[in-house]
């Protein structure tokens, strides 16, 4: 299986933004335009996360998500601020293949995972983990990497798997936006602890970083934001590079 190359949009509607360490709201561009661009670049998938919906305790802005979904004929995962079954069904009905959830499941009621898995199937359920190193442990954070929880990352990854999650998006608060490489150690710990697919994000700064991640960790997918948003390379560049180096199934 080829490793999926995934474009990640961190959105504060109506803009795609690019925080560093999950802080800051630097504007990158229009979600629709960026979605179109990355689709044309042959992204295997697009992630759209409304990064402030939980922090601001605001309802999901469904129209904004639908307008992005309409641009795509590739898998589309959407989330941010998901709190109830109705949120799942609305997002799926408007074209999301998978629904991404973190804060509510982590901090309020993980049972929502079980319920959603039963109704929509595990494959429709992505748990977003915002991992932060604190006192030598990797802890799960919420609300756009600002509020810590009691749970360690590997522990939570195992728990959500047993509750029926179909996939994990593993992000690192310490590495995100820095473009200095992924947290390979953490990624390995998570990938080896569970059986469901893991998409690893946070830290892609070069083609080498992506190659290194795939070689060392063999994740199901790689989520990329800054490197694409700042137009340093395209997705085709990545796939070509991986093919030349015979990495990731390319």
């Amino acid at each position: 299986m080829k490793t999926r190359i995934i474009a990640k949009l961190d959105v504060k509607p109506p803009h795609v933004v690019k925080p560093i360490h999950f802080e800051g709201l630097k504007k990158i561009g229009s979600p629709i335009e960026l979605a179109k661009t990355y689709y044309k670049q042959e992204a295997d998938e697009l992630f759209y996360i409304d990064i402030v919906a939980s922090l601001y305790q605001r309802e999901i802005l469904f129209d904004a998500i639908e307008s992005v979904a309409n641009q795509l004929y590739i898998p589309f995962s959407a989330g941010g601020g998901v709190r109830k079954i109705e949120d799942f069904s609305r997002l799926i009905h408007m074209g999301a293949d998978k629904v991404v959830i973190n804060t509510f499941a982590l901090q309020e009621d993980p049972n929502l995972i079980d319920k959603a898995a039963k109704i929509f199937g595990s494959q429709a359920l992505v748990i977003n983990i915002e991992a932060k190193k604190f006192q030598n442990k990797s802890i799960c954070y919420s609300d756009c990497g600002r509020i810590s929880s009691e749970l360690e990352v590997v522990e939570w990854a195992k728990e959500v798997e047993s509750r029926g999650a179909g996939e994990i998006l593993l992000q690192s608060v310490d590495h995100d936006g820095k473009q200095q490489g992924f947290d390979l150690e953490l990624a390995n710990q998570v990938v080896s602890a569970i059986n469901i697919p893991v998409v690893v994000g946070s830290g892609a700064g070069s083609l080498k970083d992506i190659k290194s991640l795939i070689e060392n960790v063999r994740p199901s997918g790689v989520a990329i934001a800054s490197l694409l948003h700042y137009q340093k390379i395209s997705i085709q560049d990545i796939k070509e590079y991986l093919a030349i180096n015979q990495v990731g199934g390319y």
Partner: protein
Amino acid sequence: MIKSKNTQKKYNLPKEVIYCKNCTISNQRPRITFNEFGVCAACQFSEIKKTEIDWTQRANELQDLCDKHRKNDGSYDVIVPSSGGKDSSFVAYQLKYKYNMNPLTVTWSPHLWTEDGFDNFQNHIHVGGFDNILGTPNGEIHRRLTKISFDILGDPFQPFIYGQTNYPMQIALKHNIPLIMYGENGEVEYGGNMKNAYKPNRDYKTDHKKHYFSGLAPEDLVEYGIKSNDLATYMSPDIEELEKLGLDIHFFGYYKHWVPQDLYYHAIENTGFSPRFARNEGTYSKYASFDDKLDGFHYYLAFIKFGLGRATSDTAHEIRDGHIDRDEGIALIKRFDGEFPSLHFDTFLKYCDITEDYYYDVIDSWRSPHLWEKKYGKWELKYPIWK
């Protein structure tokens, strides 16, 4: 029971609470003014910054200032009072690498350093690449002054503010460096006295006691049993000496359009800065002001005195800078403003050698009935912005 401090009278606060139509600040912030459209001075100034100021012209003025002071012989030609935070590292970086100055960063030690704060302080020296002088006052005196300022002002932060204001001037004199460059002029940027809005510098002879020291200057502390010799570290140098030096205190915010979030990105990329391990208590943000374990108590007191907590200050400038809108700001204030800074509470009580009861008695003496009421045994703001 501690006698009420009569906050309203002391700060001359209006009886009715009115919020700015544009941002989230209220008329309870001392010295703030509103125009006939209900827009506060800080927002008005923010508009002016965006539309009327010729920043190219301002940059030229900075170039001229630097050309005038640059020594080019290895000795320092400008002092940048610095915590290692995003603001001061930006100023030092720009002066050194863009304007070819030789800055000396001068740090007045926090009362109690946080781990994240100390790392950033170290990184700005080692990654940003600056010479630094760290001034740490006599710890025993500093503790006593902290307690006294808490007793009198409800704010333990006063000794820090003395040093932040006066220590750079002492170093300026000792090293013969007339130019001091601060970050932004807080009064001007955040809605205080706007008289210096179009001036690049501040008057070190007159502004301090009222604007920066809340009416309690270091020399006043002899009344509380501190020897005047022990207060020397906190004092402004002799005015005549400063005049002879030709002291000139400038604000970088006059020369460059000041957007705190932009400085955050700059600091990450250039001076080894990292945000706090989680959001600051009392707000949602994690990129500003977290080097001192006592920070939280300073902001908390402002919340008690004026009903304006940390989330209020953060949202106000983020609205002006266009990162969030007013409704989002209100939602964040509702969620976080006035949150008690419990993480370092025990540390603080031990440091000042006070009990929890005493702490709350002091705090409560600053609650004005025009802002606060008790409901079901709990203090509540009468007119929070989200009501």
